[in-house]
Each structure stands twice: as C-alpha cells, then as structure tokens.
C-alpha cells in the first residue's frame, strides 16, 4: 500500500469542509505567549552537493582507525549480502504488521528471528525485539516485578559489573514506578560479582537478580551458582548476555544445576553484534526471551504461527491483549513496536553464518583478544587487572594516564579502548580493550608497538 500525502487541492477541500480558512487557523486556541516563533540564528540551508562535500571532509578526519573499543558495541564483519538484502524495498519500507494478510513477509521473517533467538538462548519464547540492550534491561526489570508474584518489595539486585549505561537507563525508567535497583559490588581481584556481598541479601525480598554474561569487564560470571542462589532465595533470574558469546558459552536456558528450577527466567541483551554496524551508537536492537510461564508478562510484539481457512501456515501478531492498544494503562509496557529493520539484518546475518559460523566468529574474537592482551601486558607498566576466564574483552591498567595514552594512540590511527575511570573510579587508570575477529595480527602488533613507545616516552615512567 503506497503512501501518498494530500495534494494542495485536497487540503483546501478539507479546510472548506470544516469551515476553516487555513491550517494555521486550527491552532488559534493556543495562547500567543505559547506559540513557537521563527528560530533565530539558523544559517541558510545547504544544497545536496554542499552537504556531500561537508560530510566527506568530516569523514576524512576520522581516518582509518583500527577499533579496539568494545564496551557494548562491537566491530564485527557483516557479510555484504546482509545489508544488500535488508535494504530491499520490501523489507526497508515495511511498516508494523497490524494487518496480517498484507504482511506475511515481515511476519514470517520476525517469526524466524524469534525461532533463532530461542535456539541461541535455549529459552521457550522470544519477542520480536525491543529498542536496545539498555531499555531491554529496564523492561526485564519491570517484567520481573510483575511476574514474581511471591515478591512484594519491588527491589532488584543489579551487579555493578553490568554495563553502566544499562544501569543508568534502567534506573531512569523504573525509578518513578516504585522499583528500587540495589547495587551489588564486584570483587577487585576477579572482576566478578562479589559473592560475599551478594550473600548478605540471602533471605531478603528481591524480585530478581540480574546476571550479566560476560559482564562489562569481559569477565565470565559463575552463572550456574548465581542462578541456583537466586532461585533458592525466591528471585527470578534476568540474564543479560552478548548474543555472540552464546554461540560458545552455556546458554541462559541451561544456567543452574537444579533440574526443574534451573535456567534463567528472562534473558535480554544488545543485538548489535548480529549484523548492525557500530554507526555512532545506533540504531541497534534489544532482544528478550523468557520461559513459558512468563510469556503473558513479556512486553513488545510477539509473532505466532497459525493456519488460515485453507489450513495453510500463516503468521500473525499474537498475545496482543497484553499490549497498550488493548490493555491501555494496564499493558505490560508502553512499547508497541520493534526494531524491524535491525532484526531483519540480524536474521539474515545469523542465517548466513549459521550456528557453526557464529561459533567460529566467537572463537576468533576470543583468540584475538588473548593475543592482544598478551602483547600489551608484555609492555613494562601494562598489567591485566583481573584473573580468570573472559570473552573477547579484558581490562588492563597503565602506569600512565589513560586519556593521554588514548590520544597518542588515536594519532597513530588506533582506537585503544574504553576508558573506565569515569564509571569505575576504583579501578584507577584502566582501559577496557577488545579485539574482534576483524582485527589483524598486524593491527594488534601496531597497537602494542605504539603503546610501548608512548609508555616509554611518558615523563612519569
């Protein structure tokens, strides 16, 4: 169905029909003091040619840097076919599939996406995606409070090892809804959640425990023990995972050693690693999976498979009675959309790589990061901060100010990593470094050489 805006003639006809002279007249009720005025200080518009030249000049300033920054958005290889197909008009311009009969293509793709996510996470159900990892965490928190009937406190345990942006976003979204996020500190030696600190909350009323895997530092948390602990204490488990890591690590549906009570209850995370370019922070997509028991509490769109009058398979939006266009203020969430385009890319990306391909990419990332950290810590004054297994990211400490080191590296076209001092002042001059499968041996060696040079040249050393 094409979208055709009103012609000038049609606008005049409509105005005449309601007895109004101009569109401006429809805003007459707004008091003059509240009317928007002409914006001042806005320069003249530029032509397409001028904008193109400006953008190219700016892009040249970015250089061809090798990216060693992770921290939630990762530089992975995206096969050319992914965006070639995703930008086809049929996918690119499709709207929300309210009318099932006219949207079978979109619905089938979303159903396939959901099927892939449940397989990857080993969970019962997936929704059709949320905005991003951070807001997905917030939605999971709201869902856990609704879904955990035995808990009345509205409190959630959130490790300090969860991505700082996710914690901030979750706090912003839930703080005025009577929900309290209680922070659990981490162990300064292992970089994992501090078990002793967590143990202090045993027996208290919390709706859920959030478990990141890997955590923000790249470290792996003891998910089985934490899952069992949470369940034993009447809490739901919200897993926040890197989807690529799930190709090689134990998926959240299998967390815990307890037979029947095991497995995470809600799983969320950032889908960017699956086919979305970094592109200055977005658009990305959030994914959410849950157990069968909690499906009616899950926000967002859910696609279901059914049959038509002739018994042929068809796809529809299902469980819509949870959503706000039906349930209004009692809906599970105000979200009534998904990130369809990014999900399309992710589904094609996962189809092209397959389970084996994903596992190989994950292994390559792991290897590259190991190689990077080995070469960097061989430099005098650079040390790894945490001991223990990690996935594709690690924290290193420098004996020179990190800001200065990063500037020096940037001048050599190396984006060295994510500076941690703002979010984790207790870690001092620390840097979160990541080497994905895209980084070559040469780039890694260049990084190490440049850093060594900077470290030895630094006045304090």
């Amino acid at each position, binding site marked *: 169905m094409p979208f055709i805006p009103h012609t000038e003639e049609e606008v005049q006809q409509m105005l005449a029909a309601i007895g109004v002279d101009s569109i401006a007249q429809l805003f007459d009720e707004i008091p003059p003091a509240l009317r928007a005025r002409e914006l001042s200080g806005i320069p003249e518009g530029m032509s397409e040619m001028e904008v193109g030249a400006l953008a190219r000049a700016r892009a040249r300033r970015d250089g061809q840097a090798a990216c060693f920054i992770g921290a939630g958005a990762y530089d992975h290889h995206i096969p050319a076919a992914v965006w070639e197909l995703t930008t086809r008009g049929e996918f690119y311009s499709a709207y929300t599939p309210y009318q099932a009969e006219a949207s079978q293509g979109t619905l089938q793709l979303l159903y396939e996406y959901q099927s892939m996510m449940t397989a990857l996470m080993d969970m019962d159900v997936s929704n059709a995606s949320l905005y991003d990892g951070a807001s997905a965490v917030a939605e999971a928190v709201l869902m856990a409070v609704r879904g955990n*009937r035995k808990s009345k406190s509205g409190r959630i345990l959130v490790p300090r090892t969860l991505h700082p942006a996710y914690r901030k976003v979750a706090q912003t979204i839930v703080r005025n809804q009577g929900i309290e996020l209680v922070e659990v500190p981490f162990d300064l030696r292992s970089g994992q959640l501090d078990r002793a600190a967590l143990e202090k909350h045993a027996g208290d009323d919390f709706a859920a425990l959030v478990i990141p895997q890997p955590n923000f530092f790249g470290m792996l948390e003891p998910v089985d023990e934490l899952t069992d602990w949470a369940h034993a204490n009447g809490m739901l488990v919200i897993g926040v995972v890197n989807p690529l890591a799930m190709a090689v690590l134990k998926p959240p549906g299998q967390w815990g050693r307890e037979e029947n009570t095991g497995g995470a209850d809600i799983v969320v995370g950032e889908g960017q690693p699956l086919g979305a370019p970094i592109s200055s922070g977005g658009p990305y997509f959030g994914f959410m999976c849950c157990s069968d028991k909690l499906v*009616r509490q899950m926000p967002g769109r859910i696609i279901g498979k059914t049959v038509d009058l002739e018994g042929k398979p068809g796809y529809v939006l299902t469980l819509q*009675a*949870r959503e706000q266009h*039906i*349930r209004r203020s*009692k809906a599970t969430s105000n979200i009534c959309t998904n990130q369809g385009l990014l999900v399309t890319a992710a589904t094609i990306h996962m189809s092209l790589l397959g389970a084996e391909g994903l596992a190989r990419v994950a292994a390559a990332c792991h290897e590259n990061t190991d190689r990077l950290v080995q070469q960097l810590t061989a430099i005098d004054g650079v040390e790894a901060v945490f001991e223990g297994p990690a996935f594709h990211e690690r924290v290193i400490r420098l004996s020179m100010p990190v800001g200065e080191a990063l500037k020096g590296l940037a001048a050599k076209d190396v984006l060295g990593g994510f500076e941690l001092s703002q979010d984790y002042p207790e870690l001092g001059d620390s840097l979160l470094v990541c080497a994905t499968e895209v980084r070559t041996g040469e780039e890694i060696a260049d990084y190490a050489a440049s850093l060594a040079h900077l470290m030895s040249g630094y006045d304090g050393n």
Partner: protein
Amino acid sequence: MSNIPVELKYTKTHEWVRDEGDGVVSVGITDHAQELLGDLVFVEHPEVGAALTAGSEDGIAVVESVKAASDIYCPINGEVIEINEALADAPETINGDPYESGWIFKLKAVDGEDLEGLMDAEAYAEHCESEDH
C-alpha cells in the same frame, strides 16, 4: 437478551456470585460479559489463600479473549479457597457455560459478610440495559 439466572447475585462489573452455603461463594462472569468479550483464550486466577477486599479498584483476576483482556473485581471480602483448574486447558468453557462449569474461583467470605449489597437478577438486567446505550 442474555441469560441472567434469578437465584444468583450480580455486580456492576459483570461478575455473578452464588452462595454455596457455609460462607463459601463461587464467582464467575455473566453471560452478558462473555458475549462482549468473545472467545476466551486465557484466565489468570487469583492465588489460593489470597485475602481479597471488595470495592478495590485493582482487579484480582484477568480473563483474556482474542480481542480484549478484562479485569475481574472482588465482589465481597474473603479469602480465595479454590480456583477452577479446568479453565487452564479449556478457557472457552466460560463462553459455553458461564454460570456452572465456567466458575472461576471460590471465596470463603469474611465473618458477617453477606451478599445483600449485591444486585439481584432484575437490578442487573436493568444495569445492562442502561450500559447498552
């Protein structure tokens, strides 16, 4: 014209209440309600053992159909003693037999609580008429 059995009591929010004796009542939704909702697909019961207060704005159970999800409100003060488990596999029972096998939950009324404050069949019929403008 929907079916409104004379021996039952009713609420403005379309629940029916049957006195089972010994302070126990069973509760469900009326024929009028099931008709408006359409095919029921899911029932969310209150917890057995929960102490419920009448007149609260918050619903205590939810009936979900293909086109709507509706709250059920507590008719009298009491404790939930039983829920109709059969509805988990066959929620459509409420459509076919709203007053008998379609019962949703049973309450043990708080001492001294009675059904006098609820509407009788005639009053409920009038209430439905006035709502159906």
